[in-house]
C-alpha cells in the first residue's frame, strides 16, 4: 500500500488536506494502524511552507470520529413513504448502487429529453452545496458532470448571502478584487475590527499570524456587542450597539476629513490611484470630456479640466471649478451636454457628505463615547506611516500598516454597503489599500482566474477595473429570471460567473417558492434537487418554515453522511466516501480566503487513509456513473480535460514546454486514473513542465509547492503598472445602475424592491439601520417595546461549519468554552430578569421561539443576547440530543425578510427578541445507530 512516513512496520501517516471550512485548505496527516485510522496529526514536514506550520485546527481532529461514526448512512437508500414532512417517516430502505443510480438517472435522462429548462425558462435541475464553496473540494469530478449537464439552478441556498460576508464579497471584489479581505497581518500595526472574529473563524493561518503579531506589538481594537475570543485577544474591546457600525465608520471618515490635517492623508494615492479627482457635476454625474467621454479632473498645474489619464497633471482634490463645457452620462445612455457647468472633485463631494457625521453624532447612535471614536480614528492615522516604504521581494512598496476589517452582521444586510464603503475609503485615505501592512483582498470569485487575482486585473471604463455587472439596460436586462432567486434580474453587481447564482439572494429562492411578492410569479419547483454537505433545514432562517417548504420539493437526491433534517425530505440517499476515504487534488497557497497568504503556492492531495466504510463510494466514481448513465461521458471527460475545478490537463509553459495528460473522452476512467492525470497536469502547470509528479508521488508526499512572491499579495502595484484607479470614493456606476434597475423594475410593475434601490448611492449616507429590525417587529404584528433585546449569533472554532455537528469530540471540547450551546447574556440583565446560570430560558421573536440554558457573562452588552452556532437539530444523530438553541429558529424567512434584504441580496443574523425563564424541556432519549442505515438488511 502506498504510504508516507513509517514509524513502525504497521503504522503509517497518510498526508491529506482539510477544507471543511473556508479558512482552509490546511495540511495534516492521519495516523493509520493496521488499516484503522486512529488519530490526526500535523504535517510537520510543511512547517516551512504552511503559514501555520502544518498544523490543522481542532475540527480536523474530529475526522477520525467522522469516519467511524456509527450513524453514517453507508448504503444507498430510497424513500418508501411518498408523503414528506417533518412528522412523516421517510421509510428509507437500503438499495444497491445500481438501483439508486437507475432511479436518479432515469429522471435525469427524461429531463434531457424534454429540455433542460422548463416552461418558465428555469432549470429543471437544482443543486445546493454548503459552506462557502468548500464542498467543491470533496466532490471529486462532480463539477465536470455539472458542467457537462448544462443549466442548473444553484439559487436554493443554505445560508449563503445572509450568513456569509455577502456585501463585502460583492463590493470588495468590485472595488479591489477582494472577494474576501484581511489585514496584511505580517506587517500591520493597527487594526480596527468591527466584529471580524479571526481568532475563531480565521483558520490556523490567521491564528498563527495574529499571535505572532501580538508579540510584535500590534494593536487591535475590537468593536462588537459581545466579547468574542477575538475581542479577548485584542488590546481593546468597544461594546457597540448592534448594526450601528456604519455610523462609527462614517464618523471615522469624518475625523480624517474634517479634524485631521489634510497633509496627513496620502494625497498622492488619492490623486493617482482613486477617482477622488474626478469632477462631479449636475445630477451627481462625472463631468466628461465632450470629445472622448472620459471623466475630467482639474489640473492645478495648467488650471484646466483635462481627461483623467492626461500625463503630468497635479489633480485637485477639492474646490469648485467652472468648465466651459462637459458631458454627463446618465442612465440608459442619456448623454447630456453642459455649457458653463460647475463641478467639484469627487473627494470634495465626499468631504461635504461626511460633514455632519461627527463622533458626537455617532456616539448617540452607537452607544460608544465620542472620545473613543476619535481616539480610535487618530490611532489609525498615527499608525498609518503615510509616505513610508518597505522592500518586498526586492521591490520598494508603500508601507501602510493599518487596516479596518469587518465581520458578519456588519458586512451583510442593511448597513453593510456603508460599512464596506467606509472601510475601503478609510484605507484609501491613508494609502493603505492593497499595499504592505494594509487592507488586502485575498481572492476573487466573480472574476478569473481564481488562483491569482492579480491576473484578473483588466482595464475597464473610466480608468477603473473592468467589471461585469448584470446588464440593467432595457435591451439586455434579465426581465425573466434565469434562476429561482432572480439574481440576474435583481442584483446587477453579482454578475454572471459560475459563483454568481449561489451568491445571489439565496433566501429569496426559498421564500418565493412559498410566497412570491406581488406581480412576481411563484417560481416552479425544480424537478430534481441535489444536495451535498448542506443542511438548509438547520442553517437557514425560520427553520420550521423552510423545512416545510423543502418538503414540497418533488424529487430530492441527497449525498448523505448521516440522517439529517434536510435529507429527511429526500427520495434517494447516496453515501459518498467522506474526507478520509476518497481522492481529490486541491490548490493550496498563494492567496486565498480569510488569511491564507503563503510564500508558496501549489496543490495538495486528499487520499483514502482508510477504505470507505460500508458501501460509501468515491465521488469521482459516482460522477462518472452519473455521466455514463446520462450519456454524457464525452462532455464530462472533456470538462475534466478542460480543468473543471482544477488544472486543465493540457498546457504549455512560459518557455514553450508542453504537456498533455488529457483523458480519452470516450472512455470511463477510474478514480486513480483521473487524479493521476490531474496530479501530473497540476505540477506541470506549476513548474512550466519541468517537474511532473504523479499520484503515487502525491500519496507519499501529500503536497507540492513552488514559490509565490509576497509582492503578489498586493494589488496596488498591478493597478499602478496598468495605470488603473480604484473606483472610489464616488460610486457613479452604482448610482446609474440603481436608476436603471429601478426603471426596469417599475416598467414591469415591480415596486417591492424599491427600498433596496435606495442603497444605490454615489456617496453613502447614514440611514437608521437598526430601525429596519424595529419595523420588522411591527410588520409582523409585534410591539418593539415587547422585544427589547438584540439577538445575534457567533461561532466557536470547533463549530465554524455545521458539518461536524454530529461529532461528539467537538461537543466535548467545546464544553470548555463559556456559552457553548447556551444563550449568553449580560450578567446584570440576567440578574434583573431573575435568571441564574444554567436556568432554561426562552428567546422569542415575532417569528418563533428557541430554548436553551442561560450563560450570564460580563462580556456582553446589557441589551444583547448571543446564541452561538446553528443547532436545534431534530434528526441529526448526536446533535439532536444536545438541545441547544438556535437563532435560525427565530429569524424570519417570510415576507418581512424582503424588507430586511439589502441591495446586494443579503441579510444579517439579527432579530429583536424577548427573554424569559422557562421550565426545562424533556431530555431527548439517546438513539443507538440504526442497523438499516449501516446497510444491514431489514
Amino acid at each position, binding site marked *: 500500500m502506498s504510504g508516507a512516513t513509517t*514509524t513502525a512496520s504497521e503504522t503509517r501517516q497518510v498526508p491529506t488536506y482539510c477544507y471543511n471550512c473556508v479558512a482552509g485548505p490546511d495540511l495534516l496527516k492521519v495516523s493509520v*494502524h*493496521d488499516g*484503522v*485510522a*486512529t*488519530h*490526526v*496529526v*500535523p504535517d*510537520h514536514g510543511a512547517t516551512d511552507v504552511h503559514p*501555520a506550520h502544518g*498544523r*490543522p*485546527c*481542532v475540527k480536523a*481532529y*474530529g475526522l*477520525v*470520529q467522522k469516519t*467511524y*461514526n*456509527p*450513524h453514517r448512512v453507508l448504503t444507498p437508500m430510497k424513500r418508501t413513504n411518498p408523503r414528506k414532512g417533518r412528522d412523516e417517516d421517510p421509510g428509507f430502505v437500503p438499495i444497491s448502487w445500481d438501483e439508486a443510480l437507475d432511479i436518479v438517472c432515469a429522471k435525469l435522462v427524461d429531463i434531457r429529453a424534454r429540455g433542460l429548462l422548463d416552461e418558465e425558462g428555469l432549470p429543471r435541475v437544482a443543486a445546493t452545496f454548503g459552506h462557502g464553496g468548500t464542498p467543491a473540494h470533496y466532490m471529486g469530478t462532480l463539477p465536470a458532470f455539472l458542467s457537462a449537464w448544462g443549466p442548473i439552478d444553484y439559487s436554493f441556498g443554505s445560508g449563503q448571502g445572509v450568513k456569509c460576508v455577502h456585501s463585502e464579497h460583492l463590493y470588495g471584489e468590485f472595488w479591489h478584487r477582494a472577494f474576501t479581505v484581511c489585514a496584511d497581518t505580517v506587517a500591520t500595526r493597527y487594526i480596527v475590527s468591527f466584529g471580524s472574529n479571526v*481568532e*475563531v473563524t480565521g483558520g490556523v493561518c490567521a*491564528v*498563527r499570524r495574529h*499571535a*505572532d503579531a*501580538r*508579540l510584535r506589538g500590534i494593536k487591535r481594537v475590537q468593536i462588537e456587542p459581545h*466579547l468574542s*475570543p477575538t*475581542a*479577548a*485577544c485584542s488590546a481593546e*474591546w468597544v*461594546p457597540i450597539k448592534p448594526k450601528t457600525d456604519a455610523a462609527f465608520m462614517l464618523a471615522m471618515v469624518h475625523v480624517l476629513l474634517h479634524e485631521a490635517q489634510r497633509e496627513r492623508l496620502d494625497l498622492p494615492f488619492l490623486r493617482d490611484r482613486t477617482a477622488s479627482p474626478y469632477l462631479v457635476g449636475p445630477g451627481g454625474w462625472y463631468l466628461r470630456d465632450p470629445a472622448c467621454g472620459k471623466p475630467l479632473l482639474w489640473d492645478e498645474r495648467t488650471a484646466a479640466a483635462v481627461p483623467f489619464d492626461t500625463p503630468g497633471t497635479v489633480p485637485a482634490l477639492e474646490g469648485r471649478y467652472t468648465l466651459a463645457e462637459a458631458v454627463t452620462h446618465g442612465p440608459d445612455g442619456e448623454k447630456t451636454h453642459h455649457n458653463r457647468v460647475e463641478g467639484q472633485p469627487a473627494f470634495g463631494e465626499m468631504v461635504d457628505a461626511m460633514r455632519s457625521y461627527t463622533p458626537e453624532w455617532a456616539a448617540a447612535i452607537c452607544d460608544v463615547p465620542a472620545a473613543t471614536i476619535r481616539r480610535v480614528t487618530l490611532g489609525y492615522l498615527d499608525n498609518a506611516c503615510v509616505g513610508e516604504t518597505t522592500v518586498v521581494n526586492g521591490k520598494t512598496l508603500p508601507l501602510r500598516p493599518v487596516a479596518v476589517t469587518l465581520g458578519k452582521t456588519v458586512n451583510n444586510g442593511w448597513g453593510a454597503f456603508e460599512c464596506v464603503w467606509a472601510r475601503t475609503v478609510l484605507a484609501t485615505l491613508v494609502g493603505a489599500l492593497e499595499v504592505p501592512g494594509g487592507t488586502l483582498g485575498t481572492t476573487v470569485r466573480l472574476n478569473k482566474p481564481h488562483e491569482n487575482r492579480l491576473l484578473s486585473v483588466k482595464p475597464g471604463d473610466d480608468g477603473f477595473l473592468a467589471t461585469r455587472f448584470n446588464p440593467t439596460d432595457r435591451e439586455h436586462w434579465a426581465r425573466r429570471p434565469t434562476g429561482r432567486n432572480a439574481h440576474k434580474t435583481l442584483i446587477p453587481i453579482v454578475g454572471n460567473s459560475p459563483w454568481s447564482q449561489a451568491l445571489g439572494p439565496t433566501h429569496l429562492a426559498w421564500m418565493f417558492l412559498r410566497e412570491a411578492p406581488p406581480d412576481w410569479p411563484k417560481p416552479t419547483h425544480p424537478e430534481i434537487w441535489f444536495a451535498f454537505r448542506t443542511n438548509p433545514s438547520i442553517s437557514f432562517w425560520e427553520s420550521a418554515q423552510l423545512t416545510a417548504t423543502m418538503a414540497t420539493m418533488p424529487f430530492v437526491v441527497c449525498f448523505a453522511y448521516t440522517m439529517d433534517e434536510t435529507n429527511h425530505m429526500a427520495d434517494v440517499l447516496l453515501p459518498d466516501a467522506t474526507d478520509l476515504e476518497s481522492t481529490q487534488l486541491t490548490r493550496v497557497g498563494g492567496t486565498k480566503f480569510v488569511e491564507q497568504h503563503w510564500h508558496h503556492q501549489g496543490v495538495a492531495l486528499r487520499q483514502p487513509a482508510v477504505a470507505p466504510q460500508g458501501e460509501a463510494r468515491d465521488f469521482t466514481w459516482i460522477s462518472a456513473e452519473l455521466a455514463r448513465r446520462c450519456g454524457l461521458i464525452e462532455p464530462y471527460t472533456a470538462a475534466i480535460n478542460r480543468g473543471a475545478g482544477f488544472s486543465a490537463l493540457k498546457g504549455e509553459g512560459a518557455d514553450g514546454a508542453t504537456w498533455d495528460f488529457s483523458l480519452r473522452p470516450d472512455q470511463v476512467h477510474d478514480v486513480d486514473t483521473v487524479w493521476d492525470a490531474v496530479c501530473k497536469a497540476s505540477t506541470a502547470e506549476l513548474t512550466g513542465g519541468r517537474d511532473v509528479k504523479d499520484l503515487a508521488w502525491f500519496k507519499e508526499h501529500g503536497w507540492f509547492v513552488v514559490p509565490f512572491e509576497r509582492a503578489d499579495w498586493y494589488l496596488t502595484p498591478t493597478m499602478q503598472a496598468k495605470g488603473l484607479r480604484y473606483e472610489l470614493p464616488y460610486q457613479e456606476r452604482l448610482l446609474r445602475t440603481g436608476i436603471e434597475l429601478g426603471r426596469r423594475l417599475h416598467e414591469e410593475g415591480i415596486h417591492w424592491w424599491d427600498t433596496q434601490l435606495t442603497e444605490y448611492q454615489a456617496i453613502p449616507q447614514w440611514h437608521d439601520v437598526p430601525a429596519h429590525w424595529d419595523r420588522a417587529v411591527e410588520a409582523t404584528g409585534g410591539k418593539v417595546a415587547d422585544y427589547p433585546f438584540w439577538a445575534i449569533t457567533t461561532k466557536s*472554532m*470547533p463549530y465554524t461549519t455545521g458539518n461536524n455537528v454530529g461529532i*461528539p*469530540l*467537538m461537543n*466535548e*471540547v*467545546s464544553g*470548555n*468554552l*463559556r456559552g457553548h450551546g447556551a444563550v449568553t447574556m*449580560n*450578567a*446584570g440583565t440576567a440578574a434583573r430578569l431573575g435568571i441564574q446560570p444554567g436556568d432554561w430560558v426562552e428567546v422569542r421573536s415575532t417569528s418563533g421561539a428557541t430554548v436553551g440554558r442561560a450563560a450570564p*457573562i*460580563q*462580556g*456582553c452588552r*446589557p441589551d444583547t443576547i448571543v446564541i452561538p452556532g446553528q443547532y436545534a437539530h431534530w434528526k441529526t444523530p448526536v446533535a439532536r440530543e444536545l438541545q441547544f438553541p438556535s437563532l435560525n429558529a427565530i429569524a424570519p424567512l417570510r415576507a418581512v425578510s424582503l424588507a430586511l434584504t439589502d441591495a446586494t441580496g443579503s441579510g444579517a443574523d439579527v432579530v429583536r427578541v424577548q427573554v424569559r425563564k422557562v421550565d426545562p424541556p424533556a431530555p431527548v432519549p*439517546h438513539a*443507538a445507530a440504526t442497523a438499516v442505515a449501516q446497510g444491514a438488511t431489514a
Partner: protein
Amino acid sequence: MTRYVMVADLRRCVGCQTCTAACKEANGTPPGVQWRRVLDLEAGEYPDVSRVFVPTGCQHCDEPPCMEVCPTTATGKRDDGIVTIDYDLCIGCAYCIMACPYEARYKVDERRFAFGAAPTPAERARTAQPIVDVVTKCTFCVDRIDAGLAKGLVPGKDPEATPVCVQSCISGAMRFGDIDDPQSGVSQLLAENRWFRMHESEGTGPGFYYLWDKEAPL
C-alpha cells in the same frame, strides 16, 4: 540535571481547544477525560472585562500533592520532573484527585465510548487494556519523550519527541523543554518574558509556566 516543563503563552492562546482534541485523539482518552484542556476565564465587570484562555493539565509539580497522598505509590516522580502513574498499582481511591489543586486528574468507572455503548474501530484499536477504574492524567507524553531520547532527539525541539499538545498548538502558545538547560527554548522564553505559575502560594512548585507580558526593559 533535566527538568521538563510546559510553557503556555497566554498572549497567544485563543482557546480553540485544538490541543484538547489532539491530546484526546493521540492518547485515546475516553469521553469526559481531558488530560489537556483550555479554560475560558472572565475577569472584570461590564464594560471593563477581560477574557483569558488558560491551557491547563497536570503541572508535574516539584512537590506533587498527589504523590504525597497516594497510598499505593502508584503516583511517582521521575528525575526529569515528570510525574507518572503506574496503572497497575493504582487502586482507584481518587485521593489524588482530591489532592490536586489543578483538577488535573481523571477517573472513569465504566468503559464508555464517544458514540455510546459500542467502540468505533479507532477506539477498539487504541488500547489493549482499557484504563478504567484507575486515575489518569497528562503524562507530558512521556512515551514520546523516551522514544525520542532513545533516537537522540530533543524533546521540545524535535516534533516526534515533544508532547502532542505542543505540536498541535496552532497559535504557537504551547512550548516544552528542559528548564535546566539555559539554552533551551523554554529557558529563553522564561528569561525574556514575565510569567506566573498557577496557585503559586500552595508551594507545589508547578512545572507549568504562564507567560503574560514581555519582561520590562532594565
